[in-house]
């Protein structure tokens, strides 16, 4: 991720939601199907205005079940597709996200998170859907989710999500939140973004099988309308896409689906801040990483050797990197805007190497640097 403010003279001033939209279309997204929901609706409005002129399509569906279904259908027809939503809509999408995992359909869901459960505090921020982005749909499946903390990162992670979805033939989530989605910052739009490029289906179309994996474990995807016939199937299926109950096939498919992501360490994006001499390791992501960065700065001014590991990729969880960063530290402090979702992953990764503390809250407002400082000093002061 490139630095933002240092080069603000060559940047444009933009809202996070707009940057998410612009990143997705800059990477090649051309189809959007959504349902209005705060605090993500600006993305839908931009899609409605801009996609038709690009030869793209904006659909406003009857609900979020239909939104993600239409996105999946369009993607199979060859159009790079995405949608945006927030917690309640993300919940409604979960069953059909399972279709995209199982039938291996590239698509992106931008979830601008808000406070829950249920309707909750509909206009207020939270990082409430961290575990839903991992385990929201039933059954074992892979997960890839990015968590931007700046408007610049909104632009870049949305593009990366589109490209990764196509490369891996699976849904990818961008977990923004109300603060990041609605705030405005300078953004450099002239950074080099990756582009969606659906690989050509090799060989004779008559011999094409929808689920015959390439060497990287991902089957090349033809499009509806191609002479290579696509049988997309959400039931357990063989390489031709025919349903099966054969255990060896089921086992191999499920493992292949989950393993698609595990080989892609290049997609695990981390940022570290003052880690080299840190005695206290902060781990955070998204809006909470912003205030933690400020808190780390102020703690260091007070003589506390604090450092931050920011998770820009939240799934797959960077267990090895977190464990390595925690080694030898006096303590690990996990800062998040929920009642403690990712801290369990951190605890499992760190094991007994250092004590792990949770700094978390969810009451409708973002954590402030002074909140993080006062709560971390309760831990640090006792050490």
């Amino acid at each position, binding site marked *: 991720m490139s630095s933002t403010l240092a080069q603000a003279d060559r940047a444009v001033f933009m809202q996070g939601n707009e940057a998410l939209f612009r990143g997705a279309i800059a990477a090649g997204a051309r189809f959007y199907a959504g349902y209005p929901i705060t605090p993500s609706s600006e993305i839908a409005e931009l899609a409605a205005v801009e996609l*038709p002129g690009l030869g793209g399509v904006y659909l406003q569906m009857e609900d979020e*079940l*239909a939104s993600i279904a239409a996105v999946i259908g369009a993607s199979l027809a*060859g159009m790079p597709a995405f949608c945006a939503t927030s917690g309640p809509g993300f919940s409604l999408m979960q069953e059909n996200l399972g279709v995209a995992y199982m039938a291996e359909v590239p698509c992106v869901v931008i979830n601008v998170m808000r406070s829950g459960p249920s309707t909750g505090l509909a206009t207020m921020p939270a990082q409430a859907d961290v575990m839903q982005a991992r385990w929201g749909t039933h059954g074992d499946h892979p997960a890839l989710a990015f968590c931007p903390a700046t408007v610049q990162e909104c632009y870049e992670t949305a593009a990366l999500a589109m490209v990764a979805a196509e490369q891996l033939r699976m849904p990818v989530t961008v977990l923004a939140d109300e603060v990041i989605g609605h705030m405005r910052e300078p953004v450099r739009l002239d950074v080099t973004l990756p582009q969606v490029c659906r690989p050509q289906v090799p060989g004779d179309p008559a011999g094409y099988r929808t689920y015959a994996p390439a060497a990287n474990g991902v089957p090349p995807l033809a499009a509806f309308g191609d002479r290579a016939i696509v049988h997309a199937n959400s039931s357990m299926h063989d390489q031709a896409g*025919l349903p099966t109950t054969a255990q060896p096939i089921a086992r191999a498919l499920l493992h292949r689906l989950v393993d698609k992501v595990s080989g892609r360490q290049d997609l695990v994006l981390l940022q570290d801040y003052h880690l080299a001499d840190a005695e206290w390791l902060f781990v955070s992501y998204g809006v909470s990483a912003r205030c933690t960065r400020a808190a780390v700065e102020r703690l260091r001014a007070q003589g506390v050797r604090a450092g931050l590991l920011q998770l820009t990729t939240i799934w797959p969880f960077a267990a090895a990197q977190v464990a390595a960063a925690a080694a030898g530290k006096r303590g690990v402090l996990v800062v998040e805007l929920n009642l403690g979702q990712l801290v369990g992953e951190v605890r499992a990764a760190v094991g007994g190497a250092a004590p792990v503390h949770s700094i978390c809250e969810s009451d409708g407002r973002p954590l402030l640097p002074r909140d993080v400082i006062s709560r971390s000093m309760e831990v640090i002061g006792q050490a």
Partner: protein
Amino acid sequence: MSADLGAQAAGQPGPEYSYWDYLRHEAFPTFWCAGCGDGIILAALAKALAERGRAPHEVVAVTGIGCFGKADDYLKTHSLHGTHGRALAFATGVKAAKPELTVVAMMGDGDCATIGGNHLIHACRRDIGVLALVSNNLNYGMTGGQFSATTPSGSRTVTSPLGHAEAAFDLCALAEAAGAGFVARATAAHPELLRRLIYKALGRPGFAFIEVMSTCPTHFGRANRLGDAAKMLMALRDQYRGGEGLGVLVQKDTPGFSASYRAVQVAAAANPAKRAGEGR
């Protein structure tokens, strides 16, 4: 293979394709019970596609869950087998992204009109160029014969053993009320009529709805002592002997979503200022 056999059996072969070209015969025998109407509907669709001369790769079959949701297993066209109730939503995305495709959503009464009722009315209203081909056998066959939104009041199913307390949807009336430009009904006892209706529907730019009254001798027939499949088919034939409620029920000129949205795309391309959202 066996194009000749297919052409002979189809009766009226298209110039290039026979119904056999659309069927994934390696997946036969089908999963459906003896006496089920679903195979009759599948054959009628394959014959109508051949008559229309649509190449298999120009066709997408979208299904949900249920007995007729297995139909895509037996087709050589592109296919998408998704979730229960959502076939029309998936199909809407397919058609909107690539309007030149022929898109058929194949659903049962539970899939289309019970769990999926919301998508049905909006597909009708939106006039998306999809053919909704509905096998209505008056109950949930795959899960063992529970009542659906089309189970007639008073009839028996495993979840209405003393008689069904709710009223049934008239699916064609529902589709018409929701704005469908083409609504038709056939039965499993009228396969030639069904083939003609599908042929007609496939020529339309907008949404088309065809309800096929079908037979479930295994569950609904047994629970209501309607006799075997032959008896059930004869009862369907007799029920519609006068022709009332059969054939094309609604037919009006509609542009279809894709043509309407194409106009939006053309206007947007011609007006970049609007595209950039200026003046908002």
